[in-house]
């Protein structure tokens, strides 16, 4: 028992000190937020005229996208006719530009050929021999095949009456795993809903992208902003508008010119459907969106020259392209769709979610072009940080002095415990902010100062209980373990509520509320940790030792 206590005490102290020193040595400190440290700012201008409403939508989309890709607590706002994005803690201007490159537009391009475009000098080899790397789809011919989902849809939507003529898809090859575009045609909603986009999607527009292929081969990470230029591909756009693009597995596909953008989809409508495996269901924007999509779909379904059949049994394939990376190239199984499109295939949940995110994000109403990036100075500044830290330290010092005066010798444990607690919080905060990009704002710093009060409370509850027990005749040695048992119950109940609150706020909210929740959770968990692994052994050992005999603690003289 005694050995265990010593072990816990010493191990905890050592681990925490080593972690702290390690963090200091590698100068791994918690990141500071925009208001304290400044960061980088990028101004995004719309590529064409955009209404204020469009910009507000873009603002929300950009913030959402930044948070999803791990940039925490960005400050995004519309200023004049542009959007200002401020990123905390980013010093490198290139990094900032890369990070905000989230407004890429999703393009719909028919697949012309599987491997290389004609007269493609670069890739003569048969890429289909490459095994798929990351996607769970086993693709026998490298390209996900598009199948209609009519019978599966019947299960999903019993109300669906699929007219035989429309649902006909002879290519019901069950053996072929695929991405499939199918239709949910249960509802034919009259398209009287006004199309909000004032820009008609021109489907014969040549591919304007003159930048080379941007993916790194085999890069499975969708979320990474793609703006580095892969050196292997110098020029992959052909005079006829075809381009050789890579899919997410790094396999090249030759695709025709863009015939539509992500705007054909209803904004934020893509959801993952997990009945019958994971598939993505996305709504079509009624009116022009649907028309554009159906125009493309019928070309591919009929195997028109712009979207030829890739083998005897299949239909043409339609590639969904984001930033010149093919995200999915499903076969089109129906000539026309109404209302929704379902993309099925052997997606894993993560892949389906990625695709849904891309389709949602592709719904940017306007393309945003990043202007130059600037560094920004902190808004509140070092002064505020310094002031709050000095003020906080003074406050904590007074608190500790008070506790020493009140509890006398046993307050040694408080001093030690608070030191260990602050070192733990520092190390954990440094680690978490390094790993997640959450930064400590002024509100966070002051939140930690408030947490001091709650942490000190653990000791107060414990010692007040011991005081009661001793006053009523127990010895210190006897009172300590009993008191801890009761105190621990109180502390975990109360702390658990804070942790639950922190977890829910972190999980469900965004922006600075999320950052607050993170640091609330950290301080509370550290409190529980220190209480059990440091305070408990320290007090129990102190209570047993001869050190306390004859000394005053709790305002009582400790007798043996």
């Amino acid at each position, binding site marked *: 028992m005694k050995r265990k206590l010593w072990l816990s005490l010493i191990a905890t102290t050592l681990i925490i000190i080593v972690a702290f020193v390690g963090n200091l040595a590698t100068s791994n400190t918690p990141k500071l937020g925009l*208001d304290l440290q*400044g960061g980088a700012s990028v101004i995004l201008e719309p590529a064409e005229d955009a209404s204020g409403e469009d910009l*507000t939508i873009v603002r929300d989309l950009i913030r*959402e996208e930044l948070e999803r890709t791990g940039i925490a607590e960005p400050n995004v*706002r519309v*200023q*004049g006719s542009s959007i200002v994005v401020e990123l905390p803690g980013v010093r490198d*201007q290139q990094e900032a530009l890369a990070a905000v490159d989230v407004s890429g537009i999703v393009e719909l391009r028919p697949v012309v050929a599987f491997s290389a475009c004609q007269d493609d000098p670069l890739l003569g080899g048969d890429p289909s021999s490459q095994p798929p790397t990351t996607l769970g789809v086993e693709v026998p011919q490298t390209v996900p095949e598009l199948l209609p989902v009519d019978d599966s849809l019947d299960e999903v939507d019993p109300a669906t009456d699929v007219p035989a003529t429309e649902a006909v898809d002879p290519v019901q090859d069950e053996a072929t795993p695929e991405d499939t575009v199918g239709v949910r045609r249960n509802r034919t909603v009259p398209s009287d809903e006004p199309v909000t986009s004032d820009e008609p999607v021109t489907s014969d527009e040549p591919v304007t992208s003159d930048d080379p292929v941007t993916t790194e081969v085999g890069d499975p990470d969708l979320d990474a902003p793609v703006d580095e230029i892969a050196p292997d591909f110098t020029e992959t756009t052909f005079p006829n508008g075809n381009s050789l693009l890579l899919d997410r597995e790094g396999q090249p596909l030759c695709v025709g010119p863009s015939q539509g953008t992500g705007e054909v989809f209803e904004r934020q409508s893509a959801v993952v459907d997990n009945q019958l495996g994971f598939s993505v269901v996305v709504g079509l924007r009624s009116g022009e969106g649907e028309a554009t999509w159906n125009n493309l779909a019928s070309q591919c379904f009929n195997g028109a020259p712009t979207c030829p059949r890739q083998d005897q049994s299949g239909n043409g394939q339609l590639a969904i392209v984001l930033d010149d990376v093919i995200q999915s190239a499903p076969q089109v199984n129906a000539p026309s769709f109404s209302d929704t499109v379902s993309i099925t295939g052997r997606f894993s949940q993560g892949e389906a979610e990625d695709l849904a995110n891309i389709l949602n994000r592709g719904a940017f109403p306007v393309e945003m072009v990043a202007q130059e*990036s*600037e*560094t920004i*100075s902190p*808004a509140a500044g070092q*002064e*505020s940080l310094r*002031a*709050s830290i*000095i*003020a906080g330290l*003074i*406050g*904590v010092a007074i*608190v500790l002095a*008070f*506790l020493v005066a*009140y509890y006398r010798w046993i307050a040694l444990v408080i001093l030690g415990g608070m030191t260990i607690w602050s070192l733990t919080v520092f190390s954990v905060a440094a680690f978490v902010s390094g790993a997640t990009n959450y930064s400590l*704002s*002024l*509100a966070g710093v*002051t*939140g930690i*100062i*408030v947490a*001091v*009060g*709650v942490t*000190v409370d653990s000791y*107060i*509850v414990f010692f*007040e209980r011991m005081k*009661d*027990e001793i*006053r*009523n*005749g127990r010895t210190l040695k006897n009172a300590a373990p009993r008191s801890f048992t009761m105190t621990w119950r*109180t502390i975990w*109940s*109360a*702390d658990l*509520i804070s942790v*639950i*609150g922190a977890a*829910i*706020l972190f999980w*469900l909210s*965004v*922006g*600075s*509320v999320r950052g607050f929740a993170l640091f*609330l959770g950290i301080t509370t968990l550290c409190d529980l940790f220190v209480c059990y692994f440091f305070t408990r052994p320290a007090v129990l050992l102190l209570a047993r030792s001869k050190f306390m005999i004859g000394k005053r603690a709790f305002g009582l003289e400790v007798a043996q």
Partner: protein
Amino acid sequence: MSRADQIAPTALGRLYRGQTAIDFYGRRRIGMYVAIVTLLVTVGSLFGQGISLGLDFEGGQAWDVPAGADFGVEEAEQVLSDNGVDVGGARIQLRESDSRSVIAVQIQVVDEATAASISQGFADASSATVDELNFEFTSSSWGADITRSAVRALVIFLIIVAIFISIRFEWRMAVSAIVAMANDVLFAVGVYSLFQFEITPATVIAFLTILGYSLYDTIVVFDRVQENEGKYASVRMPYPDIVNISMNQVLMRSINTSFSSLLPVVSLLLVGSGFLGAVSLREFALALLVGMISGIYSSIFIAAPLLAKLRSTTGRTSRRDLLTGDDLRAAVIGAGVSGRLASESPDARVAGSRKNERAENASLADEDAGSVRTRSTTDAIHQPAERILSHPPRPRKKKKRS
């Protein structure tokens, strides 16, 4: 040195030794009235003058002023305060890139004349022309969807907390804790509305901190209530008595904790924003201070009496007056618990145990308790009573009434 278990002569001494006997339940109306006044004032103020939302919520106006050797952040602040704009609500940053270097100033929307005057002020100070200043409107950065997601998170949080407290304690405690918490947040919002302090994202964080702190404080008190409930399970102690005893027992802890939590915040307010002049800290610290004081107050004067009220009207009715004065004190320090003291004197022990064995009826047990209290309580409180501490008396098995 005086005996530790003697009653201290002064109020402070009694407080220090945990020998207080304050009838919190008897004063429950105070808490109720204060809560009602808080509610009325807050709602009245919210409807009357609303709440002042900051730059991040409402958007504002922005200037980009070319920075130079003679124009920096401090000069910009100077121009703003010359025009009567609160610097605390403004955001002034230096933006730099390879090609330019500007001071970006954002403030809340002001009327045209003031805006023009500020523009002129910036132009003069930075020796640029007014046209060179990039004057634009800027939108809020805290969009409606952030608020929506935060509110949704909060609602789910409250539901889960209520479930957690109901499981760990009981549902009446969940109700009391959440009512007390709502009171605290209302109070803080009321102060903000009444004095028209500006709401910033930091303020929202402060409100959330208050919310967590209030719940925490209440749970610590309730844990003691629940513990005492178990101890007194055998002696038919009325619930308000249990609450009163528990409150007095945790009073010193509450005071100590409050002191320890408030000190850093007071220091933040006085030292940080007062002496060191960090304006952005001021309102944040103020919100925290107000909310934490309210949180401490509400767990004692709102949550606990409300819990007692909820329990006393639903549980068994008490057949005697509640403990007050020295009786309460005796119970608080652990001696002279009704039904327990009887076992201290040999005669009473025989009589008491027989009675208990027979477990006749409630009125007899209460008579017993009543007779105990007529004895000299000074005897009672000197009884060593360690058993009442962490060793609850083994609850007697309840026999079915025949």
